[in-house]
């Protein structure tokens, strides 16, 4: 098994090969990870929202409220204004969901599902839907489409600007997916490469492999810390950009 195969094996999604009535069921390692994370989030947050009686329950509720305040005051309201209040549950879920999936890769036997383009594309499609819904809700179809033409644009330039703006919005949504996917994938690839250094050098000579152990492990620990930071950062960036794009659609030029 060469290095590329090892990396592919650890990063790529694995289909469990289940089917129902001749239809292939998308039960893969990543989809199972997402399901487990979703169930844990659901059970945990429902418990927190109802556990006010005990002291630990109050502490968890306070933490959850601090989190909501952070999402509302740092991400939603500055970018979407008061209109964003209705979308607060979506953004609270989005940030926590991406963060949990990013961090799930740190747990042995679990995978970082956000290193799968299909998963990040699904999240980007949901964010695109929120952006579209925001525009339609506050401006109607005509107003929403008018928003794609900046005010003061000469009439003869409208046929050129309008499709460009629509493509620009679609690209923004696609970039959301690619950014998250690339960042999470690259982090895991670097971690795997650093581990593989030990085995590759060890194949050349056992002493060299032992010598490479310490620097490789130091780099591995450093990269793991960096991965933790990237997990938080990417969840933040994805949520923030969704809020900015939705806000730009609500508050047009």
């Amino acid at each position, binding site marked *: 098994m060469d290095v590329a195969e090892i990396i592919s094996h650890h990063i790529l999604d694995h289909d469990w090969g289940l089917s129902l009535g001749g239809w292939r069921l998308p039960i893969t390692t990543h989809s199972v990870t*997402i399901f487990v994370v979703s169930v844990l*989030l659901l059970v945990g947050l429902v418990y927190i*929202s109802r556990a006010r009686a005990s002291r630990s329950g109050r502490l968890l509720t306070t933490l959850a409220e601090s989190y909501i305040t952070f999402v509302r005051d740092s991400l939603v309201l500055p970018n979407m204004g008061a209109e964003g209040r209705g979308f607060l549950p*979506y953004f609270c879920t989005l940030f926590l*969901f991406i963060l949990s999936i990013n961090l799930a890769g740190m747990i042995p036997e679990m995978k970082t*599902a956000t290193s799968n383009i299909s998963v990040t594309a699904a999240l980007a499609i949901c964010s695109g839907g929120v952006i579209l819904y925001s525009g339609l809700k506050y401006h109607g179809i005509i107003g929403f489409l008018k928003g794609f033409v900046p005010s003061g644009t000469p009439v003869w330039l409208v046929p050129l600007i309008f499709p460009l703006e629509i493509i620009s919005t679609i690209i923004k949504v696609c970039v959301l997916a690619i950014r998250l996917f690339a960042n999470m994938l690259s982090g895991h690839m670097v971690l795997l490469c650093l581990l593989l250094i030990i085995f590759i050098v060890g194949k050349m000579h056992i002493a060299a492999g032992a010598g490479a152990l310490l620097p490789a492990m130091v780099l591995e620990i450093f990269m793991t810390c960096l991965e933790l930071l990237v997990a938080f950062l990417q969840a933040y960036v994805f949520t923030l950009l969704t809020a900015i794009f939705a806000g730009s659609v609500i508050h047009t030029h």
Partner: protein
Amino acid sequence: MEDLLKPDYGVMILTICNFLLLVYLLKRFAWNGLIGALEKREEKVASDVKQAADDRQTAEKLKQELEERLSQISTEASKKMAEAVKLGQAQRAELLAQTQEQAKRLLDQTKAQLEAEKNQALAEVRNEIVRTAVLAAEKVVREQISTQAANEAVDRVLAEIEKK
């Protein structure tokens, strides 16, 4: 490695359904409760802060009013004190004048009374002397001494008394 960029539409649809269902369930069973409680508490805090600010404003207004009132009372007290002092001084001067006048009147009265009593005493003494002299004269006349000689003798005696 090329599989990395190959989208799995099944996983994509499953993820979308999973995520949207999670958003709905969390909104229904967790976020609404948490956000509602948070907003309620924030409203209460904002209301308490506003109430505290209003109370503070009212207290400051009251304090200002009280200070003004205190200053007014102090001014009035000073004014009344000055008036009282002035009135007291006037009354003192009046009482002093009355007392002095009364004392003078009493002194004059006493002097006049003493003078009258002195004159009365002198008249009584004179009459007594006259009576004594008359009695003496009668004795003398009886002993053949004229009345004229008797008067001269009396005048001489009176002149000597007055000299004394």
